[in-house]
């Protein structure tokens, strides 16, 4: 059964949410939306109905946030609460109804992105945690991890530096490049802390998108379809992540006396599953 991190909102029933809530997290420009597009197609081919949602897409607040960001007029607490309103609207009007109807909900970012942004801007982590206490605990969080050095060329040679993604509201005296480096570095540091705390499944986002997709696909198949692992199919050198206790994969692993194992997908090539543990350092950490 699904549960929230803290409070339950008035009128919110959680006992009949049969769908799966899957989060794809990661910083700006890491390729989340590309991956989500690929994942949606793939899941639909396999017969799953998919809802694709993401930050600032609510009917209530979405436009307001975009306008506010254009004018750069909102304070840090205000902007954070604006996002919280957007999130609550999507949770109540999109995510929960879709989960009740049995959809796989793929969300492009979740409360964790909002938390790291707020933390980097000096807001109190305990306060943020309480604000987002009504959020549902997802079935899995896949964190696309990249170092700043690998991130910069992607941003420079695609859409360029953006005011907010460079944290210019914080470091307004520096040039875009310096500000981007510093801001994204700070975000990644906070993401790493949350990765450990919230048990993100970390996916190295530096290889080409096709490789990243394969890894995500393997992890998501396990969450959605609960395909248990066969020990013989774990590739040498691969680091499988441990299934969450209580999930079908964990139960299956327990039956076989395995504490946690990699997975092989139905009808997929037997490429190794290389999801790293949350504690694995990035190439340019620090």
């Amino acid at each position, binding site marked *: 059964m699904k549960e929230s991190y*803290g*409070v*339950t*909102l*008035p*009128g919110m029933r959680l006992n009949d949410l049969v769908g799966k809530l899957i989060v794809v997290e990661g910083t700006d420009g890491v390729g989340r939306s590309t991956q989500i597009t690929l994942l949606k197609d793939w899941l639909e081919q396999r017969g799953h109905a998919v809802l694709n949602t993401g930050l600032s897409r609510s*009917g*209530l*607040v979405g436009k*307001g946030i975009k*306008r*506010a960001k254009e*004018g750069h*007029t*909102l*304070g*840090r*607490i*205000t902007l954070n*609460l*604006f996002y*919280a*309103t957007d999130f*609550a*609207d999507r949770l*109540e009007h999109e995510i929960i109804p879709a989960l009740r109807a049995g959809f796989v909900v793929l969300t492009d970012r979740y409360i964790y992105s909002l938390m790291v942004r707020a933390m980097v801007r*000096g*807001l*109190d982590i305990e*306060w943020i945690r*309480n*604000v987002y*206490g*009504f959020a549902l605990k997802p079935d899995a969080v896949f964190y696309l991890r990249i170092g700043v050095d690998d991130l910069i060329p992607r941003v420079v040679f695609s859409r360029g530096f953006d005011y907010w993604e460079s944290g210019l509201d914080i470091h307004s005296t520096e040039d875009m490049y310096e500000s981007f480096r510093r801001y994204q570095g700070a975000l990644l540091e906070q993401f790493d802390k949350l990765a450990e705390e919230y048990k993100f499944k970390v996916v190295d986002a530096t290889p080409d998108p096709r490789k990243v997709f394969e890894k995500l696909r393997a992890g998501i198949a396990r969450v959605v379809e609960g395909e248990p692992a066969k020990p013989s199919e774990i590739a040498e050198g691969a680091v499988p992540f441990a299934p969450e206790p209580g999930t079908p994969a964990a139960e299956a692993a327990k039956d076989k006396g395995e504490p946690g194992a990699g997975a092989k997908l139905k009808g997929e090539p037997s490429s190794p599953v290389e999801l790293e543990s949350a504690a694995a350092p990035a190439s340019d950490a620090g």
Partner: protein
Amino acid sequence: MKRYGDHRFPGRLFIVEGIDGSGKSTQLMLLHRWLRSEGYGVVFSEWNSSMVVKDTTKRGKKRKLLTPATFCLIHATDFADRVERNIIPLLKAGAIVLCDRYIYTAFARDVARGLHPPWVRDLYSFAVKPTVAFYFRVPLEVSIERLHGARAGFKFYEAGLDLGLSEDPDESFRVFQGRIVDEYEKMVPEFGLTVIDATQPIEAQQEQMRQVVLSKLEKAKQLRVAP
């Protein structure tokens, strides 16, 4: 990030609370006049937040898009904007700031809508603690009687019609405001609200208010005088 009670500013913050028809706005207006005539730099902080937040709140209300949760959060956003852009800078500059309604209005309304009391209190913990928070206590019947003469019909959210308490707006308003009064009464000891008996003559209430305010201004050395 400073929490409720942690802020230290040269200015002073006086706020009024109470249900509709308690007479709090009239009292605040009279206090404003008096402070200005005494030469203090005093600013009346209205709920005029940035257009962006205001537009969203208006749209949500007009189209009835708001649930108890989003009603609460959009008002917290609006209030945060007012605190960050208006109240804090004014208090830093040494002004006397007057607010018609403050966080206690949100606590009363949101808890009456079913939100978890500690969650809502923590949500608003970025707010500056007022120098004095006046609560204008009035029996529900008296306030309804006053409102009846003054205006026609209640608005959807104001009457708590989103909660399905009653199909009749008057009855819904009565039940919802009753819940709000209960919440205010709980907050009197919790937040040390200064209670004014709002059934007294207007002049008597204002006299009490001025005495309380005056006692807080005597110790304030860095207040601005009006230009």
